[in-house]
């Protein structure tokens, strides 16, 4: 008899798990040998191996952050740092191992690809097992590869930018990622090329105690545009998994990049991600960040406004239900004059969930005529849920216009009653109010993702009223 795996699916719909059938799985724990093995298996150039080892050194020395969420549940010795699920990457779904293909089908990725995407990367454990890009975009010189392929095929471009926006010693988890990174996306959009529909990456963790460390580098050249979307899920285990990504983005003069995340990890995943973009003259960087899943998320997408006319926008939604801590927000750093930014953060907390807004607006001396506006709204669904805000503002320049607004509200009983008096059940009324609360951000998403976000919230809301 085969014992059923210990999984607790609960209301989380993507908590299913595949039997492991891997080409390679590292042992638990992290040593210099693990890092060297990963690098050797990837056949990397020396500079990358050295970068990894330096990063490992830093990771080992660096203390755990003592601010933010409680990370005491992470046991670095218990984690698998590298799993290669398949020999090679598929260019068609038929080239992907059957069981992995089935998993992505359940997640709706091939279907979405056929319907509305310009390219897809699908990562399973440590490796991207499927990759595609619309042919016309390839012809226009757009590069959309997994990061490992980026290192192999475009070494000069990668070497020029890799680790420049987020140095390996930026923080403990950036150092960890720099040491053991695998997979993620490498994107280059040539001058003037505007990609009309999104590119999407999907990240799936399958193994228990897995650590996933993808690394993404996006370069948007002059006057070019790309919308990159990422989604992620994992099986639900009683033990913890770790997801620690690094995303670096460069937006050149006049370019625009929008990066959308719908994070829906299972509730045993520590999600500790460093995301940062540099925007040059008249360039625009937009982060749209939805955090629904995970046990703990610490993520503050950042924009550095490097030259005049640059604009940064961060829209963030977090939903913290029972046992979750969403510590999210955003950072904007105004280095140059005449730059502008906006942060809109909306959080919802339920049960024993806690959401924190943590944000920074920094204006350097000499950055005149900066405009920045921060709005953070928190909605509490009951008496037990919690929310807090940590807005940091550091302004070294007198002539700056900085706005900050924060609200905390509860779902009003009279709103529930009003909707119920029209025939909506209490659950329906609640989710309608919550979806209305995040509507200003949902309406920024492409329709398919807005629908998905609403649906995920609906699921979180089910049974939320006693």
């Amino acid at each position, binding site marked *: 008899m085969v014992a059923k795996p210990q999984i607790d699916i609960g209301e989380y719909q993507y908590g299913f798990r595949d039997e492991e059938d891997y080409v390679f799985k590292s042992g638990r724990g992290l040593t210099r040998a693990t890092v060297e093995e990963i690098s050797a298996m990837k056949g990397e150039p020396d500079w990358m191996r050295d970068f990894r080892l330096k990063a490992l050194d830093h990771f080992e020395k660096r203390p755990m952050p003592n601010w933010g969420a409680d990370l005491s549940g992470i046991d670095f010795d218990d984690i698998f740092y590298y799993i290669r699920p398949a020999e090679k990457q598929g260019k068609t779904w038929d080239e992907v191992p059957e069981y992995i293909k089935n998993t992505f089908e359940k997640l709706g990725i091939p279907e979405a690809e056929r319907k509305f995407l310009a390219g897809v990367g699908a990562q399973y454990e440590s490796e991207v097992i499927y990759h595609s890009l619309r042919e016309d975009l390839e012809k226009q010189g757009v590069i959309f590869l997994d990061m490992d392929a980026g290192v192999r095929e475009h070494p000069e471009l990668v070497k020029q930018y890799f680790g420049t926006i987020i140095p390996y010693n930026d923080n403990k988890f950036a150092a960890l990622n720099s040491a053991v990174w695998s997979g993620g996306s490498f994107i280059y959009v040539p001058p003037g090329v505007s990609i009309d529909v999104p590119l999407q990456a999907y990240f799936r963790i399958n193994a228990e105690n897995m650590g996933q460390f993808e690394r993404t580098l996006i370069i948007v050249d002059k006057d070019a545009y790309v919308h990159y979307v990422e989604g992620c899920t994992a099986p639900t285990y009683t033990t913890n998994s770790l997801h620690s990504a690094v995303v670096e983005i460069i937006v050149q003069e006049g370019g625009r990049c929008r990066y959308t995340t719908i994070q829906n990890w299972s509730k045993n995943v520590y999600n500790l991600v460093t995301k940062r973009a540099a925007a040059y003259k008249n360039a625009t960087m937009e982060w749209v960040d939805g955090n629904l899943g995970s046990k703990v998320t610490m993520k503050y997408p950042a924009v550095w406004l490097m030259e005049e006319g640059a604009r940064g926008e961060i829209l963030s939604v977090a939903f913290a239900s029972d046992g979750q801590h969403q510590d999210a927000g955003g950072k904007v750093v105004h280095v140059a004059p005449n730059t502008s930014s906006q942060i809109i953060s909306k959080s919802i907390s339920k049960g024993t969930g806690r959401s924190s807004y943590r944000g920074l607006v920094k204006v350097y001396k000499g950055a005149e005529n900066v405009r920045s506006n921060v709005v953070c709204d928190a909605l509490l669904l009951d008496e037990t849920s919690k929310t807090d805000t940590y807005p940091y503002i550091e302004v070294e320049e007198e002539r700056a216009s900085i706005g900050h607004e924060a609200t905390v509200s509860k779902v009003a009983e009279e709103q529930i*009653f*009003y909707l119920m008096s029209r025939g909506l059940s209490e659950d329906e009324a609640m989710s309608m109010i919550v979806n209305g609360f995040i509507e200003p951000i949902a309406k920024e998403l492409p329709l398919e993702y807005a629908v998905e976000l609403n649906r995920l919230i609906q699921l979180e809301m089910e049974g939320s009223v006693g």
Partner: protein
Amino acid sequence: MSDGNSNGTTPMFEIENLHAEIDGKEILKGVDLTVNQGEIHALMGPNGSGKSTLAYVVAGDPRYEVTEGSIRFQGEDILEWSPDERARKGLFLAFQYPTVIPGVSMANFLRLAVTNVRTARAEEIAAEGGSAQPFTPREFRRLMREKMALLKMDDAFATRYLNEGFSGGEKKRAEILQMALLEPKMAVLDETDSGLDIDALKVVSEGVNNLSGPKVGMLLITHYQRLLNFIKPDFVHIMHDGRIVESGGPELAHELEAKGYEGLRARTAEAAAS
């Protein structure tokens, strides 16, 4: 009472000796009221006399506690029903102060509301030869546009957020739009006429008259005889301090208009003394 049930069948809507309190304070102190199918009743009374409280209690507002008495709808005691059950059975309240729900579009909200109410009444709809099959978004938009046109509401309201930024009069129109789409059997309209300009009053009254008919009962809460020129009530009641103290025909509203509550009270006191 004058509006008692004359034909011997169960009245459609019947309130008996209703007592209700909020935060420990008794507001309704024994209300009796019966509304039969097809009847329009007007409820008048000074500020603070408990008219809205009665409306809320009928709709099932959880803030109020009913301490005594009963409310029956089509023969069933509804006091244990949740507000949505009441709505699904065909009760409707047009609020005196409709609530703002940010980010929720009128169309999305109403489509769900209408679907729920029609699904609950599927048997009935089938018996009348209709289908309770939920409307597709497109069908619903068409239906909604039709009803909005009758109420002279701009199409833009379909995508606006529920009551957000609506003027006082627009909120009242939106309540009547909801009523028109939900097709209740018993509707309580709480001061739907206040805040309406004279043209809007006509339009809204037409909306109400369109719905009213031999099968529908209505309770219009109002301060002004003016509304009753457009919607002819069969009965007029006056509420004072949590009780209905006087009931009569349309002439009662005229008398009230002429004498005011003080005058009416004086007249009643005289009658009692003589």
